[in-house]
């Protein structure tokens, strides 16, 4: 029998249905992998009992003939999703020990579909970061290593770095991610897996710790395109509890998967051809173009003229929203409370002292940096120069895409400008870190579906990802193009186990 932890979601689902193995065996196999991978620090909380419980139910359901779409599939849950009775921290000290008494809509849908939870996955604190180094619970380490023989620890990408690592290291077959400005796609690219950020509003944000409300979007991360489609079908759907939720039926994406791109046109944005870009990235992009042509697609050059303003606009809008969204962490009702002792003069610590101490203690440096940027850009006298301008840029970027989609169905671009970098390499320079999201951010600002699929290894032996951006609501074309790349790239590389 093949090793169960090497199976994809579809293979586990189908094999379990066929009676090749029990769900309990699957859950136990993955839980064993999780337990044996502490060195990767992918999980903040492990919940083998939850996975086992769901597995027993799946086995019972199989016997009763009442299998559900994800029966027998254990998954990882990014620790940004509130889970009833299980600590939810957003990788912050602020929420350390916080146990919600409610379940996020997306996680509830997955449990309802029969999935089980292996644990809560590490991430950048409040999803702010591109390397997973801002987590209060320590950085995740990528399972990948450069083939130069050095053992430099590499970043798994961020913010969904626990998710990317856990999948790449076979600790779970699939996981949830969230993407605000690339947090699903960039870590997927760094670790040689797939991930899709659907159209804004496809997945309910209810119960997901908010970073930037107008950009935050949940999506799946998995080993291949089919698994992403299966997962997304069971995460998406209208939710009356989220006013920005899309009231549209959820398509049967898996059933409609097709790598035949005849009649489709792929746009190549000329503004994404950055000066001095890594030649490996460029080569992968060229290869990707050839693969899509091979799948029957026509290829045209398109222009997204406002691309260069996307990153600055993003780093105004996202921090502005974050500065307000994170105001609720004040020590009053839940989470960390740091009440300074009375001073020597006998003066009592007041409300302001509690706020200051709690937030100073509870937030990490990157979170504080973004709260301060956001507070600054929203303040009187600067609002128009920053926030209003950024919103205008956002509108222009959305219009760029609309115009481009007049002449193409999907857009192909690199996911990130480089392969995984070493842990610590960019922490001293926030701007260099932010630049990592340069290709991911425009689709986020426009609310468009976008996916990363592994396409090649660079000369250091590290995976690189190609990004497909689609029209709003057209996840199907994105998935199909992704499948065409997946079939042709023949990407089977995986990190060798060292942990």
């Amino acid at each position, binding site marked *: 029998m093949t090793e169960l932890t090497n199976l994809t979601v579809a293979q586990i689902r189908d094999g379990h249905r066929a009676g090749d193995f029990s769900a309990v065996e699957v859950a136990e196999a993955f839980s064993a992998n999780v337990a044996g991978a502490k060195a990767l620090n992918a999980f903040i909380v492990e919940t083998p009992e939850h996975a086992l419980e769901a597995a027993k139910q799946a086995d019972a359901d199989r016997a009763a003939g009442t299998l559900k779409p994800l029966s027998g599939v254990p998954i990882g849950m990014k620790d940004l*999703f*509130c889970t009833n009775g299980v600590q*939810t921290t*957003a990788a912050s000290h602020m*929420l350390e020990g*916080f146990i*919600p008494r*409610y379940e*996020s809509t997306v996680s509830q849908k997955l449990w309802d579909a029969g999935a089980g939870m292996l644990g809560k996955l590490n991430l950048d604190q409040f999803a702010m970061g591109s390397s997973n180094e801002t987590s209060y619970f320590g950085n995740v380490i990528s399972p990948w290593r450069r083939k130069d023989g050095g053992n430099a620890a590499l970043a798994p990408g961020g913010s969904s770095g626990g998710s990317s690592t856990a999948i790449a290291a076979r600790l779970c077959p699939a996981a949830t991610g969230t993407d605000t400005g690339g947090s699903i796609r960039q870590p997927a690219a760094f670790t040689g897996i797939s991930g899709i950020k659907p159209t804004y509003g496809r997945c309910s*944000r*209810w*119960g*997901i*710790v*908010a970073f*930037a*409300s*107008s950009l935050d979007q949940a999506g799946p991360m998995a080993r291949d395109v089919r698994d992403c489609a299966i997962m997304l079908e069971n995460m998406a759907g209208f939710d*009356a*509890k*989220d*006013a*920005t939720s899309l009231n549209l039926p959820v398509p049967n994406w898996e059933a409609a998967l097709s790598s035949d791109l005849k009649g489709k046109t792929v746009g190549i944005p000329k503004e994404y051809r950055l000066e001095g870009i890594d030649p490996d990235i460029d080569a992968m992009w060229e290869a990707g173009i050839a693969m899509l042509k091979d799948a029957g697609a026509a290829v045209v050059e398109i222009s997204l003229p406002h691309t260069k303003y996307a990153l600055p606009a993003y780093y105004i809008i996202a921090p*502005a*929203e974050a*500065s*307000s969204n*994170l*105001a*609720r962490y*004040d020590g*009053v*009702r*839940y989470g960390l409370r740091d009440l300074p002792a009375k001073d020597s003069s006998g003066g*009592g610590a007041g*409300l302001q002292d509690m*706020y200051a101490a709690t937030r100073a203690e509870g937030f990490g440096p990157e979170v504080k940096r973004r709260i301060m940027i956001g*507070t600054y850009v*929203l*303040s*009187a006298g600067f*609002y128009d120069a920053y*926030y209003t301008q950024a919103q205008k840029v956002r509108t222009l970027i959305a219009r760029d895409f609309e115009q481009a989609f007049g002449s193409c169905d999907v857009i192909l671009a690199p996911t990130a400008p480089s392969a995984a970098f070493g842990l610590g390499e960019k922490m001293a320079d926030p701007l260099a870190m932010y630049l990592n999201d340069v290709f991911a951010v425009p689709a986020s600002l426009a609310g468009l579906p976008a996916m990363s699929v592994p396409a090649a290894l660079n000369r250091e032996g590290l995976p690189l990802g190609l990004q497909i951006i689609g029209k709003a609501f057209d996840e199907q074309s994105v998935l199909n193009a992704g499948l065409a790349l997946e079939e042709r790239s023949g990407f089977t590389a995986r990190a060798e186990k060292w942990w």
Partner: protein
Amino acid sequence: MSDYRIKGETGEWEVVIGLEVHAQITTNAKLFSGAATAFGAEPNTQVSLVDAAMPGMLPVPNRECIRQAVRTGMAIEAQINRWSRFDRKNYFYADLPQGYQISQLYHPLVGEGSITVEADEKAGIPEAKVIGVERIHVEQDAGKLMHDQHPTMSYVDLNRSGVALMEIVSKPDMRSPAEAGAYVRKLRAILRYVGSCDGNMEEGSMRADVNVSVRRPGDEFGTRTETKNVNSVRFVMAVIEGEAKRQVELIESGGTVVQETRLYDPDRNETRSMRSKEDAHDYRYFPDPDLLPLELDDEFLVECRESLPELPDAKRDRYLALGISPYNADVLTAEVEAARWFDTLLDAGAKPVAAANWVTSELFGALNRMGRDLTDSPVSPQQAAELLGLVADGTISGTIAKQVFEKMLESGDGAAEIVERDGLKQTSDTGAIEAEIAKILTANADKVEQYKGGKEALFGFFVGQTMKAMQGKANPQVVNELLKKALG
């Protein structure tokens, strides 16, 4: 024009007043959560996960709150904005779980409208005046801090957190405490007619921020102060009076008024400074990214308009057209319950003028004595209509009607039944009346002489005697006619 002036040492000053009234929208659920809104519940029993701002919780607008605000806007003839948006007002306080209040700064739901206050000579409002309303927007209320529960800590009650408020912002159109008082009363009446707010100022479901400045008559506006959360009409008027005087004294003694927020202390009847403009918060308003813009369609707007009841001004005009006196029309339309009661009385067939007089004097007098109000009146409009009908058709006199009404209040019996049982029907039997008149004239021959000698005032005496002899049951008109004939 108001001639209200503050007489300072250096001359006269005019007062300029604008009001921001916060009115709690009458709904079962909060503005963005499904939690209940009952007043006086145990602390923290009406709090949803959204109201407590738990991680990942999201606001969803409550349609009924929007509907009530739109209906209120329509009731003051205001512009209804089909496209509006919610903004976040960011500040830290323990009664504000989200760290921001969801409000509407940039694009309010309701634009300009107006409210007319009626002339009231006695109060110093010589003629009716139109007060402009700048806007109405909807927003969340905050929770409540309790400082008296623990020696060193404050407690937080979030029951009110997230409750829907309308903020109704007037233009600086008022010029006297009386005008401001009349404006608040009229606004309250409209809200209660519409049913969008219960107007209960004691329970805090309606409260006003009072903006006051002074100037030489005709000059530019002076610097204003804002006194927060004033919760009665009387206090609003007191704040204006006190604050205007304070400002005049300050300016005349060489000082300048600073733009600041003040608090009113009803016990000492004075305001004190809370914070000046320099310490004012920078609220960092920006559009709430959790909420889409609010777009109203035709169907919604039509329903809002069609569901509006007849409003105070229209009702007053209708009463005036029926011949009811302006005073009675004002009294009957001031409170929605009275107006409804009176309309039911008219529907039951009562004659308007007589009914209005009877309600404002007899009924209100009786309720006053009993310490009751219309909502628990022992007499229903139908019963009252029956009583008034008996007077109108001559079955009983006005005097007997008072007796019958007293008996109705005591027994709860119907007017006709009482009249029948107690034999109170008035008589127009000329024979019986003539017989009594003859007796009276004979017994008072001297007075008859005086009357015939020109002392016509004695006619009333003969009427009284006759009515007395008839035990009040004689038709007064018939008595008059027969007496005139007999005294020829």
